[in-house]
């Protein structure tokens, strides 16, 4: 790949401990670091991504400049010496850099593979880079491509649909039972952290109301306030079952707090509409025999962990599929990039003119036996000089500095290629 000047470097959660990442992470917004990056000589385009799990730079550099050291120094600052930095850093060029970018965008490089935030973070970072004029035609194209790769992975694989946390699993099961969660009510028994998290996810799915029951009412009131719900005392539990649909229990009680008979007695008043119990307390809060009641579903922490395990293996399968899509798109981008790169265009242009000139010369000389070797060399020299002179202006045009800070080399490459018919020849090959 002629893209030796696309460089990606950064650190992520895989090989850099959080203490190091903390020092690198861009905390004060993108503006300052991007401005600093622009000062580095030989840097044509740049883009910076900073999330809690990774800091990455994507650069387009002039081939003759050696900018890596400067960028690494910029990234790690003075505190961390280069030798130590090398330990954490990954530095990728050309095709590998493109591949890595696509992997990140498609959420295949994330800590939680398939999570959805990364694409938003990528877009945010790109917006900043574009606003400060740091990106040019190549990065614009590359980053937009990475968004569409992410979209393709999302739509063609089920990578994002498999939830891999306990609270996601609870939501997933609730959706399997109730379909739409919009008009459903959630009852939290006890105010554990895990229960809170699960409730948060359910609220994210748009449940109608959250009711909190706790032994100490004040804690219940606090938690209820967070979800704009109401608080009840633990004694009101059974009558509440008539109105709620999803019950998450996580009290520290040592005994069962809800028995089969109690639940069975409310089913008639509920007109048998389903009840979904989630028991994440250890020891368990809910009678395991609840499951024997029609339209009652009971899952304890182990059951939910099983769901998580199934989801994980399911997701790994999808990740393989997603990886293939990324490979494919990387190749496609490479092919496009070859088409627009300056260097191969120059080579192709030179080759074309040389071929024509020397070819014609050969033909002519074949009909002129009187020409001796010395004359022949002179003629060759003359033809080569002509080719060089003809080439001079197009080459200057191709290599010329960007005007008004805007690099339009891909436009120039396209013009030259069309003008000299270079595209057609390559297609015909």
């Amino acid at each position, binding site marked *: 790949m002629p893209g030796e000047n696309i460089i990606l470097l950064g650190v992520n959660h895989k090989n850099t401990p959080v203490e190091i990442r903390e020092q690198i992470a861009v905390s004060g917004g993108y503006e300052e670091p991007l401005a600093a990056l622009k000062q580095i000589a030989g840097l044509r385009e740049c883009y910076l991504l900073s999330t809690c799990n990774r800091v990455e730079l994507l650069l387009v550099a002039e081939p003759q400049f050696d900018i890596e050291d400067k960028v690494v120094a910029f990234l790690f600052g003075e505190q961390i010496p280069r030798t130590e930095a090398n330990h954490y850093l990954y530095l990728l060029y050309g095709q590998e850099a493109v591949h890595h970018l696509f992997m990140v965008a498609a959420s295949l490089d994330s800590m939680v593979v398939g999570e959805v935030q990364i694409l938003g973070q990528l877009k945010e970072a790109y917006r900043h880079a574009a606003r400060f004029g740091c990106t040019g035609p190549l990065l614009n194209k590359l980053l937009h491509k990475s968004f569409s790769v992410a979209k393709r992975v999302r739509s063609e694989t089920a990578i994002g649909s498999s939830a891999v946390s306990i609270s996601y699993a609870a939501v997933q*099961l609730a*959706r*399997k*039972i*109730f*379909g*739409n969660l919009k008009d459903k009510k959630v009852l939290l028994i006890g105010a554990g952290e895990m229960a809170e998290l699960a409730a948060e996810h359910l609220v994210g799915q748009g449940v109608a109301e959250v009711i909190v029951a706790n032994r100490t009412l004040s804690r219940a009131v606090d938690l209820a306030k967070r979800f704009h719900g109401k608080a009840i005392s633990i004694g009101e539990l059974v009558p509440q079952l008539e109105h709620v649909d999803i019950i998450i229990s996580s009290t520290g009680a040592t005994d069962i707090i809800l028995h089969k008979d109690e639940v069975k007695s409310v089913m*008639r008043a*509920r*007109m*048998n*509409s*389903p009840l979904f119990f989630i028991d994440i307390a250890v020891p368990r809060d809910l009678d395991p025999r609840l*499951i024997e009641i*029609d*339209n009652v*579903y009971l*899952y304890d922490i182990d*059951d939910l962990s*099983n*769901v998580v395990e*199934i989801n994980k293996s*399911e997701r790994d399968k999808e990740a393989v599929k997603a990886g293939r899509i990324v490979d494919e798109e990387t190749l496609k981008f490479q092919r496009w990039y070859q088409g627009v790169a300056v260097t191969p265009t120059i080579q192709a242009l030179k080759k074309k003119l040389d071929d024509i000139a020397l070819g014609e010369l050969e033909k002519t000389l074949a009909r002129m036996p009187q020409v001796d070797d010395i004359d022949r060399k002179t003629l060759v020299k003359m033809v080569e000089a002509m080719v060089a002179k003809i080439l001079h202006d197009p080459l200057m045009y191709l290599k010329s500095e960007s005007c008004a800070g805007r690099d339009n080399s891909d436009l120039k490459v396209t013009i030259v290629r069309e003008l000299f018919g270079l595209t057609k020849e390559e297609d015909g090959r």
Partner: protein
Amino acid sequence: MEELTYLLFQAILGIAFVVTAAYLVYFISQNKQIRKIARVLMVVSGVLQSLYILVRFALAGYTPITSQHEAVFFFAWATTWAYLSFRWRHSVKNFGTFVSVLIFCLIVISSFSEKKIDPLLPALQSLWLPIHGGVSLIAYGFLSLAFCGGLMYLLLERELKSKKFGYFFSRFPSLDALDQLNNHCLTAGFIFLTIGIVTGSIWARQAWGTYWQWDPKETWSLITWFIYLVQLHQRFTVGWRGKRAAVMAVIGFTAVIFTLWGVTYLLGGVHSYAR
């Protein structure tokens, strides 16, 4: 002309097979492209089935629901269009797979019986034939959808209760969606069934002089009707839903099938024209 109808029937049989195969492939692979094909072909199949019935109507001069072949084919047609009308309003994930298998089975069964067009028996020469027979078979169409939905409900419910998530968990819609499907199809089926029985009774009064003569078919229709009545009544009063409703849909459908075939072949009676 008869040859043409024969060819048309073969084409329908072929398309029904392709639809079923496509739905099964979609069920396994979850490839959306294939589902699209299956959906389009399902509509094509429905249109061709309608055409076949119209052609037979034109040739015979009466509504083609008297012979075994015709009745079962009309049953398949009713199921197809009940599904398409339902599909048009509610989308239930992977429901088409189950329904397409059922439709294919019905068309195959109809292909085994005599397809010759016979002149209509004098007893059946009445305007009540299309009304009573047609409405009853349309009722069966909706009830068979409820059966498919009930079957899916039971499969998914078992996985949810046993907490062993197998093949169906990710492929099935929510229990709630299946329960609603059951409810809609049972209600529609029950209304048509009621109309079918009432019109049959009126016709019986005209043809045989009595509204009800406890002919095996009548008896079994009534049993079927009561099964569905109990289910609907319980749903509205004490909220029979979910598993019980699904079981009732399956039991009710067994009664439907018995009324359609069991009575004709095992019990006989005045209704046994179609053999």
